């Protein structure tokens, strides 16, 4: 995970001064949103919590909603 932390630190050091210089607050805001979300997921994974498995959630939901697909596939 240290590689991802490195990537995030590099991107912040590289881009944030540019956003501030250009006064592009909208761009800086969306950049910060992605950056913080990626950081939060990195920390969550580093702490060794059980992974949420996004596609498993979607899979179970769709299987519950449309039970006929089990027969067809």
């Amino acid at each position, binding site marked *: *995970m240290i*590689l*991802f932390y490195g*990537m*995030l630190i*590099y*991107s912040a050091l*590289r*881009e944030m001064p*540019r*956003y501030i210089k*250009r006064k*592009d607050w*909208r*761009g800086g*805001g*969306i*950049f910060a949103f*992605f*950056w913080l*979300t*990626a950081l939060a*997921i*990195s920390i969550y*994974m580093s702490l060794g919590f059980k*992974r*949420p*498995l*996004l*596609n*498993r959630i*979607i*899979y179970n939901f*769709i*299987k519950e909603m*449309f039970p006929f*697909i*089990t027969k*067809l*596939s």
Partner: protein
Amino acid sequence: MKLEKGRIGLKGTVLIMIGYIYGSTAILSPGVGVGQDAWVAQTIGLGLALIVVWVNTLLLARFPGQTFIEINERVFGPYAGKFISLLFLWYIFHLGSIVLIDHLDFVRLMIIPLTPAEVVVFLGILPCIYAAYKGLEVIVRTGQVLVVFTLLYFGLITLFQVQSYDFANFKPFLVTPFPKLAWAGLTAASFPYLETVVFLMILPFLNQQNKVRVAVYLGLFFGGLVVIWSIMRLILVLGDTAVNYVYPSYYAVRIINIAELLNRFEILAAMNYIMIGFLKVTVLLYAAGLGWAQLCKCQDYRPLLLPLGALMALVSLNNFEHVVGNFEFTTQVYSIYALPFSAGLPFLVLVGAWVRGLPGKVKNK
């Protein structure tokens, strides 16, 4: 303000579309679940997709030079338009994470099994971010080389496998019950053909806007032919046993052995899968980055690519518990999940534009 100043040619667009369509099917070989009728399911899927993408071409003809995000805002206004764009961008982003893990699971399981998934995913996303950062023209130029190499590889493998072909594997023909075959066709339409909805973010930069329809149909048709032939090749070589393999196309290449001299071609297959996966993830990452920048009216899309790519990689690590979960998702529920995004959203926007009489009389050409 135009965020992308590059322009792409017809030939390059058709080639990257072929590569994009062949992308994940090279690894996952969809439809092998219906046995020897898999190629029929693929043909049904291609036929359905050729009808559905007509909506995309109509949309691009109504709004030439505008991406799907710009069209949404024009048709539905700032709030509803942004909401539809958010749904579309979520689909592109999530699809990117799925494609990334499809290809890197292959690398991890078949080539470097002891390397942690995080390292493989990190190294996989870096070149994609770099290529997307360089812009659309660079992606298309790179894609042209990679797709030509892929097609050469494809021809070579087809030739070398001739000795293993068993045409009896196609029999019995059409024994799959119709509902199951239709479902397999629908699944084939959504994966991979309708995934080309992402080209609604790329085709507006085609230098000949009057040839958008030609680009879409040529790309889809030839991409479809490559996929159908790759499935037929699997049936010819592996027959019913194809369903037993995690990566049937890889195993089909492994068994090539001509006079104990020409063998071990799987390294070519692995290289090909990595290259074509890189192309597909790059296209998706670029489209997601450009889309978010247009949605939020940023001055530049490129700074977003690094955190967005990191996020895509991290989400890809949280998609499935193992590769079997990936197959279950793709073969069983993916079509239901993807169709509202890949077919529903463009149709909704086209209906909206038609009802509102857009684009109406515009001053610019």
